[in-house]
């Protein structure tokens, strides 16, 4: 069977009809892992209890208790905890750390009988846009192995794009699901802030982080999200969301053209071609600047490092993780952190320390929080008139390894169009927008749709109504 041509709905039908068994489905994924993982470096660890999971899922199906997710092989980003399995966030400091509890999303999916295949590679502590910041080597893009898969959830995106799993989970703090989804040619989404519990996701920027799915189609992403979503007592920022999409056949889109001049010409062409098709379906597309969206990236690089410097302070080698002993306590801290963290983690910890230091906190952090509120207010006004703000997901397709590693600001620009959704807490999704030619290889690019906070169901409905248009390009 070809995993790359199988949606979870196809698999569910085949599993319940007895066309194939859970074992056969899982083996087909394992076969792809065996043949491709050494080259692509997608999985860091295969979970140790796959056989038990397969038996349980098959018995659910045999007993007629299957849900649409029963027996579906799923990959987990290495910063999402599953009891007893290594969750090291691609960092040396957590190299052999085994999760001591289940993330809420893991618990909710386990009830459905999914098959957790393993933990995928990522930028260390989810900081990066290429997986080049992983302590365990980068993941390669399945479409062209000389190029990055995007990041930080690059391993999860590549897992789905190479058929090592049917679907995957990632985390998105500034674009870490949507950007790799775009660069690997699949669907990736994040919810309204709080709609999915963060309990059990290793924290990076807590006011921005969200867990979300990677899939081949919008409907699969919507289903996974709905199963994972909902208030959770272990995450006090979690909320209940209304999953009923409004009865609406046509939508009003706003192409926010801020930064559009930086988009590479053939990516712009793809975007404009899709917009034409969207208009032909009876939807409305206006073009206009939303000036405050331009604050997104600088605001992100103030509030995110500030939160990173607090969240990563817990890794000191004392209670868990890798301890590198020194002659005094301070030396133990220094040794553990210095050997445990890579360069980007160090940069962001120091940047956060700078931002929160005396004299700067008010000018930078407080200013960023105020700008965030003004961005929310401007977006709310846009969403009174429009159902969604659209842009390409990225300026360009996947770049080559090493192209942006020496210049952090270049790398940070990867999140230009995705980051505002995290700042204002809005739901957003990247869907495939066709391909552009790079060195004779068709490289995928993505189309980004952001809706108003709380309108998750509507965002999925909008994306589902236009995804087939992009497929035909």
């Amino acid at each position, binding site marked *: 069977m070809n995993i790359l041509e199988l949606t979870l709905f196809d698999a569910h039908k085949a599993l319940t009809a007895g066309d194939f068994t859970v074992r056969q489905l899982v083996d087909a994924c394992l076969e792809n892992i065996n043949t491709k993982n050494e080259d692509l470096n997608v999985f860091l660890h295969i979970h140790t209890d796959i056989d038990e999971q397969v038996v349980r899922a098959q018995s659910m199906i045999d007993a007629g208790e299957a849900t649409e997710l029963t027996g579906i092989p799923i990959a987990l980003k290495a910063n999402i905890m599953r*009891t*007893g399995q290594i969750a090291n966030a691609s960092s040396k400091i957590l190299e052999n*750390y*085994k999760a*001591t*509890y289940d993330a809420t999303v893991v618990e909710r999916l386990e009830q459905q009988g999914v098959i957790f295949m393993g933990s995928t590679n990522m930028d260390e502590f989810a900081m990066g846009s290429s997986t080049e910041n992983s302590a365990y080597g980068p993941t390669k893009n399945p479409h062209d192995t000389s190029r990055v898969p995007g990041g930080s959830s690059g391993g999860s995106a590549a897992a789905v794009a190479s058929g090592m799993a049917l679907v995957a989970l990632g985390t998105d703090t500034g674009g870490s699901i949507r950007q790799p989804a775009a660069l690997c040619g699949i669907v990736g989404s994040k919810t309204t802030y709080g709609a999915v519990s963060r309990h059990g996701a290793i924290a990076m920027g807590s006011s921005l982080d969200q867990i979300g799915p990677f899939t081949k189609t919008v409907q699969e992403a919507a289903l996974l999200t709905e199963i994972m979503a909902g208030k959770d*007592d272990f995450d*006090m*920022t979690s909320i209940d969301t209304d999953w009923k999409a409004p009865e609406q056949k046509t939508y009003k889109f706003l192409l926010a053209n801020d930064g559009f001049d930086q988009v590479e010409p053939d990516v712009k062409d793809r975007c404009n071609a899709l917009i034409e098709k969207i208009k032909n379906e009876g939807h409305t597309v206006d073009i206009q600047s939303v000036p405050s969206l331009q*604050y997104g*990236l*600088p*605001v992100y*690089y*103030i509030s995110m490092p500030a939160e990173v*410097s607090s969240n990563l302070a817990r890794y*000191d*080698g*004392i*209670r*868990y*993780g*890798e*301890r590198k*002993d*020194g002659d*005094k*306590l*301070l030396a*133990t*801290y*220094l*040794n553990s*952190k*210095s050997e445990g*963290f890579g*360069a980007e983690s*160090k*940069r962001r*910890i*120091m*940047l956060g*320390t*700078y931002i929160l*230091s005396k004299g700067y906190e008010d*000018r*930078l952090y407080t*200013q960023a*929080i*105020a*700008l*965030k*509120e*003004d961005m929310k*207010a401007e977006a709310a006004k846009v969403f009174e008139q429009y159902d969604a703000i659209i842009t390409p997901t990225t300026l360009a397709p996947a770049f080559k390894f090493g192209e942006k590693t*020496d*210049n*952090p*600001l270049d790398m*940070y620009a990867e999140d230009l169009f995705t980051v505002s959704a995290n700042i204002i807490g809005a739901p957003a999704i990247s869907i495939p927008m066709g391909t552009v030619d790079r060195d004779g290889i068709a490289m995928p690019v993505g189309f980004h749709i952001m809706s108003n906070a709380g309108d998750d169901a509507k965002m999925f409905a909008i994306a589902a109504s236009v995804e087939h248009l992009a497929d035909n390009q």
Partner: protein
Amino acid sequence: MLSREDIEHLATLARLELTEQEKEVFPKQLSDVVGFIKAVTEIETTDVARDFTNVNTMRDDVARTKDNAEERERIMGEMPEIEKDLLKVPKIL
């Protein structure tokens, strides 16, 4: 512009030790980022945005694990060093 000394000071505050190579490249890299984010310090924000405050959400602190002994064992298993039934930490003084 952040100097090499500024970077070393920040590293001390953050309890990090930098390699020689990091001390070479971090001043420029971090200065670039600081220059980039400082661009927003001059933007006028509204009073509403300035007055924004977060609200605490509380719940009772109740243990809800399925199996306390098993979870305890897992947590102990992740500790770098244990003696008897306790986490062993380096001497503070």
